[in-house]
Structures are given as C-alpha cells and as structure tokens.
C-alpha cells in the first residue's frame, strides 16, 4: 500500500484553531509529578546529599551548577520545579459525553464568578431573613462590629487564582461591594465562616521596623545616626543629646547652607513635632540632589535618628505624620513622541 509521506499544509492545519490553550489530562500531570520526584532523588544522589531532605532551594542551586547558562532572561534558563508550578492550573472539561454541560451557568461564560455571586446573595438573603425573625420576636439585634482595620479583602489576582477563571475589574468591584453590603448588616455573624474565606489578615505596620539602641561617645554623650534620601540626595545625620539646638550641614551652619526659610522649617520639623527643639545637636552630611531634595533627605535622616531617643508611641505618631516614609516621587522620564514627560509637541494642522 502507498503511504503519504509529505502532506500539504492545508491538511496538517485541519484541527488547529479554536481549541484554545493546550489542555493537559490528569494522568499526564500525575506522570510529570512522578518523574519530578524521581529526578529529585537522582539529583540528590548526584550531588552527594540526602534524598529525603533535598529542598527546592537545593534543587535550584544544583541545576545552576550543572547547567550554567549565560542567558540574560532568568525565565529562559533551565528550571526544575514541581509540575504544579510549571503547568498552569486548568479547569477540567466542563461537559459530559453527550455534550451537555455539568454546571447550570456554563453558558454565561464565567460560571464560577456568577455561581459565587449567587451564593453570596443567598447568604445575604439568609441574614435578612434571620434579622426579620429576630425583629418579629422583639429580640435585640447583635451589634458586635467586626474589626475592619485588621483585615483586607482578597485582591483580584488572588480571587482569580481561587476560582481558576479570569474576571474583569468591574466584576471584581461588584463582588467586593456585595461582600461589604453583607458585612454591614447587623446579624452578619451567622455567615462569619463564609466571609472569612475572602478576607486576609493585615499585620500592624510598626512591628516590621527595628529601632536601634542609643550609642555613647567618649564624653559620655548619647548619640544616634540615621540615613535618609529624597530624589537624588543622600544624607546621614548624627543627633547628639544634651545639646543647644545647633545644626551643622557639611561643616556649615544651616543659616548659611539653607538661605531659604522653607528648607530650615523642614529641618526643624521632626524636632518641633516631638517638642525637643533646644535639646539636641545635629551634625549631617548630604550630597546630590537640589536644595529642597537635600532638605527632605536630612529631615528623613534626623527623624530616623530620633527614633532611638523616643518612646514607641511617639515613633508611631511620627510615622502617621509622614516623617518616616521615603518619598518615592522622582523626575518622570521623557517619552518618545512627546516633548517632555507630559507635554506633547505643538499640534500643527498641516
């Protein structure tokens, strides 16, 4: 019999097209997981380490050692990770052998999103019914307010991961509005468990920062250092205790270094906020940036140095006054096709 060896491109391209991204069967993925685990043990043996306690970081180091690559793109280099991280999470096929879909909302296109909205609304109606029952029996409504400050809702990306389905910004905001409406009702405690699926804890900001202890120089005077930056200016400040309120910048007194009143006000801002104007001496070095940037950098450096002299509550007050945040605003880049970062070229009719 004759066998066609070279086929035309039209025949080859018959079934490609509207099937979307490649769908992996479950058996295939399980096989990949087995292969990965075996490969991990082989790799551990090769490197001379214990196969039982071979972590992902060890795998990464071993691969980087065995397959050194000079490619710039980190994602193009050889990688050995668990298949659940490599193969994207996909939903299984949603319809049976007769072609009928399993879920009743399949034809909306976003079945998980709409089923989630339906469930949440059902909970809302439940809460309202419970409320009506309590009112009918003349019992007082529970008014324990949930602590809203300590938790935040899931972000859009996290929700997409949870549902394994894409959604638009509008859909996400509608879902969050529905959740907020549910939480705002007085008897929402019944559905606490359901709501907690979509809420995350946010830790208190202050606990992340370490405050250094005071240091003492030869004369026994306490001092502490701080670093600050703003735009391109970098500053270091050393704040001494038992001082008269003298401030020196790069060896020059501030009255001569900063002739403008606004800059001197900024330098004194942290001291004035804490009420310690005449009590500390300061010696700073600053370089780079312009007049206002240098003042901002020194302000940040002195605020950071003052943290060691002051109680924790006052440090929190300083943070809420905006004294301890690095200002991220920098000069915006010029874009091609425009004269400046925002200004466009003059429009000429012809």
């Amino acid at each position: 019999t004759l066998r066609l060896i070279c086929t035309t491109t039209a025949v080859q391209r018959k079934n490609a097209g509207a099937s979307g991204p490649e769908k992996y069967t479950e058996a295939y993925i399980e096989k990949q997981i087995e292969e990965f685990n075996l490969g991990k043990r082989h790799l551990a043996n090769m490197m001379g380490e214990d196969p039982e306690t071979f972590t992902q970081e060890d795998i990464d180091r071993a691969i980087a050692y065995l397959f050194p690559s000079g490619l710039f793109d980190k994602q193009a280099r050889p990688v050995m990770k668990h298949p659940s991280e490599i193969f994207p999470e996909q939903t299984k096929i949603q319809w049976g052998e007769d072609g009928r879909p399993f879920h009743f909302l399949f034809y909306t296109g976003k079945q998980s999103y709409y089923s989630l909205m339906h469930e949440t609304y059902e909970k809302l109606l439940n809460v309202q019914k419970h409320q009506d029952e309590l009112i009918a029996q003349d019992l007082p409504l529970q008014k324990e307010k949930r602590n809203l400050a300590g938790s935040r809702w899931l972000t859009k990306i996290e929700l997409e991961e949870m549902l394994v389905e894409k959604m638009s910004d509008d859909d996400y905001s509608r879902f969050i509005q529905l959740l907020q409406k549910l939480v705002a009702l007085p008897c929402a405690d019944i559905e606490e468990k359901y709501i907690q699926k979509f809420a995350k804890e946010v830790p208190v900001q202050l606990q992340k920062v370490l405050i250094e202890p005071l240091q003492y120089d030869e004369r026994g005077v306490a001092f502490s250092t701080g670093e600050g930056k703003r735009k391109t200016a970098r500053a270091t400040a050393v704040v001494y205790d038992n001082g008269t309120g003298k401030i020196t910048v790069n060896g020059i007194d501030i009255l001569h270094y900063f002739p403008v009143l606004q800059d001197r006000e900024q330098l004194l801002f942290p001291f004035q906020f804490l009420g310690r104007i005449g009590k500390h001496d300061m010696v700073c070095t600053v370089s780079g940036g312009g007049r206002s940037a240098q003042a901002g950098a020194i302000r940040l450096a002195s605020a950071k140095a003052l943290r060691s002299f002051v109680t924790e509550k006052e440090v929190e007050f300083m943070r809420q006054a905006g004294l301890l945040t690095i200002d991220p605003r920098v000069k915006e880049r010029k874009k091609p096709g425009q004269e400046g970062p925002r200004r466009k070229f003059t429009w000429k009719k012809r």
Partner: protein
Amino acid sequence: MAAPSATGLCQRLRAWLPRIMPVRWSRYNPSYLEPEVNKELYQKPLEELTEEEREQMELKAVRPIKAAPPTLSSSVFSDPMISKFTNMMMKNGNKVLARSLMSQTLEAIKRKQLEKYHKAPENEKETIECNPYIIFHQALKNCQPIIGLSNITRGGKTYQVPVPLTDNRKRFLAMKWLITECRENKHRRMMLPEKLSQELLLAFNNEGPVIKKKHVLHKMAEANRAYAHFRWW
C-alpha cells in the same frame, strides 16, 4: 546598624507600577493614606475620641502612610491655605520669589492695619483686626462664590446652567480671581504685594472688584435659573 532597616524599608516601598500605565497616576500605592501633621490630635487621650476617629486610628495603624510634602510642617507658621495661594502665585517654579511676595503682602496688611489702629479713637480700637492671617482667611471666604455656571450643549446651542460648586472649586475660584485681578488691574509701577494687600483689605470689608465679580456671577446664575433643570448630576 541603620543599613538593614533602611534597605528593608526600600524594598517594601519600591515604586508602585501597575501592569498597564494609566494617564493620571501617582508613585504611591493606592493603599497609602494622607499624613496628619497636627500635633494636638496626637496628644488627645483615647477617651475623648469619637467612634469614627477610633476607626480611623485603627486603620492608620495598619496602612502605610505617604511622606509629608516639603510645604507641610507642624509649626504654627505653616498654613495650608497660604501655601496653596503661594503655589498659585508662583511662576516657572520660582517658589522663593512667590514666598517672599506672600510675606511682603502679609507685612503690608499688618502695617496698614496698625496705622489705622493708632489713628482710631479709643472706642473703635477693638473693632480693628490686626492679624493678617485672619484678614486673609476672612477675605478669601467673602470672595468665594456659592453657585457657578457651567456650559451645557443641547440641540446645538450652548447654555450657561447654574450649578452648585464643591468647596475646593470655590476656594480655587476665589484665589484665582484675586491673583488675576492684582496682576491685570494695577498701575504699571505698583508692586504686587501692595496691590494684593489693598485687594485683601477691601475683600475683608466686602467691597472691591473681586466681590463685585462674585455678585455678577450670582446675578447671572439667578438670571439663568430657568435652565437649571438641564443639570443631570
């Protein structure tokens, strides 16, 4: 020493850049809150705060806060309205000149009021206001229009429809009118601070061209009352 905490903060405050760049954006993540500089609010004990303030405080403890801008300070001399006015007077980014003009204006107001104070008889001395900041605030308040006009096009014709204004818009219009008035309708050799102090004193007493402009706007709005139903917001 100070290095680990500084690098830790830098990593967390890395530039906030969403995947698609919108046109109006800021370098801060949207979750950052505005800083509160007023010292007295922090010295209030816990019991005196209302429910809303307590919630606000708890929210502030969890969210990051933006850095205070260079114009804002906790000293008694920094006033947000005066800074706004100085920024509007500024040309080509020359803040030094704008600030000196502002201080010269306030000085001129104080001098004129003191002259009046010393010349006035005993019983009228208490009615004369000498504090230039109070005069500035009161003058601005007197210049603020209550209702504004907006152009709405219906069926080819553009109508001037009376529309309520937000607080920010009122303040902006009052300051803008004062500045344009002083820049245009003055004698060639007169200095801006002198002219501004004159205008502010007249506005403080509800006289002067800026107040007249405000009344003209109100009258136009009253005349176009019939078109008020064109507004849909």
